[in-house]
């Protein structure tokens, strides 16, 4: 199963992910992005990939989750 991860170390708070794909990403009070759907369902993977491509910091990735 794939897991959606945001690397805080790289994040620039551009807000692109939560703005483009609000169903998959949200923001906390300090405008840091938060993954809303940790394990995106099949139909959400495209949405996640869109945000991954658009992120100016290249801080988002889908990784294989051993637990799944």
């Amino acid at each position, binding site marked *: 199963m794939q897991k959606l991860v945001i690397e805080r*170390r790289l994040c*620039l708070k*551009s807000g*692109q992910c939560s*703005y*483009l794909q609000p169903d998959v990403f949200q923001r906390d009070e300090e*405008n840091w992005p938060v993954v809303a759907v940790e394990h995106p369902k099949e139909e959400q993977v495209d949405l996640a990939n869109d945000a991954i*491509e658009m992120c*100016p*910091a290249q801080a988002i990735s889908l990784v294989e989750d051993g637990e799944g």
Partner: protein
Amino acid sequence: MASDFDFFDPEFQKDVHPHFARMREECPMAKVEEPFDWYAVTREKDVRALLHDWKQWTSELGPGLARSGGGVLVSVDPPEHTFDRRLVNRAFTPASLLAMEPQITELIEEIIDGFVEQGEGDFMELLAVPVPLIVIAWLLGLDPDLLQQMRPRADSVIAPNALEQEEMARQMAAEVESEGRDAARSTASRSMSEVQYFLGTIAERRAMHAANEEMPQDTLTALVTAELNGRTLTDDEIIGFMGFLFIAGSATTTQLIGNMIYRLLQNPDQMELVKNNPDLYDTCVEESLRYDAPVNGLFRTAVEDTEFLGVQVPKDTKVLCMFGSANLDPEMWEDPEKFDVTRDYEKLKLHYAFGQGIHYCMGAPLARVEAKVALKLVLERMPNLRLTGEPEEISAPVLHGVETLPVAWDPPSAS
């Protein structure tokens, strides 16, 4: 309450830091009444709040004081913005911009080859101006020499001098009042020669596309071939993009490179640190962006009557989000007035020089690469770099930096 803050005052330009500090402390939502009422917001948390709330604080009337949008990216909100951003992003992904590093290195090496024996000159003219212009010309499929000739006009769009800007703002205000937003938007100025040149280039590219020829992998190709939801871009829209990228991508990065070198020359201890630690190049670029944001700030406009920091703000009022001041707010930064290339990189990169939120600068990765490579090669190839005179401050109120930077260095033949 009206403030005595004067964005158009050359004294403000000369030394922005103390002005920012006073505004943050005494008047975080400073009212300016010239040429019509607008506000400047200077604290980090307030700048952040405005930038992230694009529904309440629109970009549709443009990022400047003049109420006119260019119609692309900086001047639109979703859904148009989403379309635009996706489009440009295809040819402008962080990965593709970062991949230009070797090409940019070669370019800067060549430029330095051309002047290094001189031993002295104006750093801006020699290096800081041509590098970003040539890189943006590559991306747009344009001739760097021709683009260079157009430079003054491009600068005047993003950064007219204070009086021009005031006059433009007055005219725009009158137009908005008499004819509404759309009329004001369509008068966005652009020179005819520039338009004709761009049109010719677009036509050539369209012909290549029609003939199924192999096309260069650049931003122009992406614009010409773009299709999203069955829609392609008109010439007018492509010109809008080209003009925008040309302006957004050249003068700003020129200021970044100039500011960084100037600040290092003023802080020899920091210069030594960077010279001896290539690991600090990235941090040095970020610290320069924080300490001397090339764009002082950009505007947002209230979409309806609202209240901010206890101040009643009428619909269509412009509010300046002062990036340069947010970057120095002691609430966010430790010892903010110290230029320190050893700051923690992870925290440092959250400065506001590229904005924040949905309009975050798309060209940021490119600007960062250009500045880093320039820094590296200047340190390596222009030893004993020193100031030989007083730099001239840039006169444009939106930009922060120098117009000239007279320097000398030890040419290779001297050693």
